[in-house]
């Protein structure tokens, strides 16, 4: 899974690309952790546009990204969810815990 970070006007954007399963999630989370520690964005957009598949491993990743953001006083918004990702997110009620686009 590819993880890219871009600085934006009010913070940063993390773009993920690939299939976000248990196999990919460990390395992706470590990379996210170090990028957030390094850049400390006030607001973070987690761009899911190029994530074609996600399972419960992605839920934990989103919750952990939000936790890191809260610790450094920032915010998180998850954007550009594919229908499959959206369905997983809503099936567990994650939209009640995390700011999800739409």
């Amino acid at each position, binding site marked *: 899974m590819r993880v890219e970070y871009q600085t934006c006007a009010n913070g940063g954007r993390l773009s993920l690309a690939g299939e976000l399963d*248990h196999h990919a999630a460990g390395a992706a989370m470590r990379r996210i952790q170090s990028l957030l520690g390094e850049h400390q964005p006030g607001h973070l957009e987690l761009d899911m546009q190029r994530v074609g598949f996600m399972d419960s491993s992605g839920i934990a990743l989103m919750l*952990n990204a939000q936790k890191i953001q809260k610790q450094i006083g920032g915010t998180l918004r998850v954007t550009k969810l594919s229908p499959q990702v959206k*369905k997983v997110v809503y099936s567990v009620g994650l939209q009640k815990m995390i700011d999800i686009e739409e």
Partner: protein
Amino acid sequence: MRNKASEGRIKLELPASSINEGFARVFAAAFAARLDPTIEEMADIKTAVSEAVTNAIVHAYPNGAGVIYISARIINGDTVEFVIRDKGEGILNVKQAMEPMYTTGGEDRSGMGFTIMQSFMDKVSVTSHLGKGTRVRLCKRISPRAAGGKK
């Protein structure tokens, strides 16, 4: 077109390594294609099978080595059935394990795998014996499409 060729059971054995999660999903999707599912139905099946296989890798065989047994068949001409078995640790209390947010995993687990399987499939049944292993059966009916058209 659906025909009798959809009968019979296909079996797959996978080493319990995370690299095989993607392969298990592709297997599930290729098998389900026999019933001409919609894109959404296909995604539901891949997601549920991914959850069950990941559980076997993460929870059944925490020390790595082990084998996951997957079988797939069509029931009644319109329903896909996947059985995912392991010979790992087993689950002490299945009812509790299936509750939302229940997990024995760490920070990188959310305890939502069974919840996802249940919301994406029509039927989920789990049997398990401590020290012997776990069997997860997932079924989903694929509604037939009108000729050439939508469902």
